[in-house]
């Protein structure tokens, strides 16, 4: 009996202090990207990706892992979608998945604003990048996570060879997301 109560207390304490796990509710989460042509954006999105994030008991995000299925990239037309999967571009046959995993997440001096720094492995390259985001709990208990960053496609050899100059297809690619995260602890 004594042992049981002790065990109960211990698990309660553990429950209070343990990390919380969150993952994206895919139906309500979007990961967008926009390359540019002659300075004009082409808006697209990745249809398949997953986000896993853990927070401390005070809901401060601690670690973030994002996996993106590259073949799910959608620029709104079959012509463009076929083109971007080619070897010079995403080469999704050779590199099916992109992965970001944070090394650390720091709070900024603004409320609910954080910066995750970590490694993005995309195509053949791995680069340290920073992902700024806002993180806020909604009334239903889920988390809304929003952010935007710029990547240089040249860092990842996306658009290599004759495309590498960036004269037509710009080097900067905007990436942004609007995620709905739900707790997975229970």
């Amino acid at each position: 009996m004594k042992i049981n109560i002790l065990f109960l207390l211990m698990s309660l304490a553990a429950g209070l202090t343990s990390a919380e796990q969150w993952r994206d509710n895919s139906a309500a989460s979007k990961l967008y990207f926009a390359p540019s042509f002659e300075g004009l954006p082409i808006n697209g999105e990745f249809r398949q990706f997953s986000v896993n994030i853990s927070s401390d008991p005070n809901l401060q995000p601690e670690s973030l892992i994002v996996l993106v299925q590259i073949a799910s990239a959608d620029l709104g037309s079959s012509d463009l979608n076929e083109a971007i999967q080619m070897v010079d571009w995403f080469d999704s046959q050779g590199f099916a998945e992109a992965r970001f995993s944070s090394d650390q997440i720091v709070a900024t001096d603004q409320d609910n604003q954080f910066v995750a720094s970590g490694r993005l492995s995309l195509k053949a390259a791995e680069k340290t990048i920073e992902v700024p985001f806002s993180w806020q709990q909604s009334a239903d208990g889920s988390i809304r996570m929003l952010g935007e960053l710029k990547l240089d496609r040249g860092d990842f050899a996306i658009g290599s060879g004759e495309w590498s100059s960036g004269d037509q297809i710009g080097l900067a690619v905007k990436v942004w997301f609007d995620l709905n995260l739900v707790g997975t602890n229970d």
Partner: protein
Amino acid sequence: MALKNFPEQWGWLSKLFHWLTALLIFVQIPLGFYAESLRLSPLKIDVFVWHKSLGMLILLLVIARLLWRIKSTIPVALATSRLQQLLASGAHGLLYTLMLALPVSGWVTSSAANFPVKLFWLIPLPAIVGPDNDLKSLAAEVHEICVFIIIAVLLVHIGAAMRHHFVLRDSALKRMWF
């Protein structure tokens, strides 16, 4: 030289419209086939920017030309028979229709393919429709059919002009020249 048309002579604005669109169309058609034949490359994209830029220029010119035509006297036809007269006006109507249908179907193709365009690398062309794969295929089909029809009608048009000039020896070609 008069700006306006007369019953026996085209004015200089009509002549300018005619020869400018003729020149642009003679560049535009081979340019389109060339662009289409290239493998996907920066060159292909540049050739398509030229093709789309010229296409929109032609569209503007043709609209201006039609407005001018509606307001103007049309020189009397030089047809030698009722049938010829009918053929000539049919061919002219078809040419105007195709000169509008070609740029518009090209514009729809480009917009439905979700490809942004900067005319002459300067002026962003707004999308006429949203991204749509089925519409893109349909518009591309229409564009291609129209180009083969316009080639055929242009051959008839040029052939008829030659016949007027060399066989009938009338003023049909001369009155369109400067």
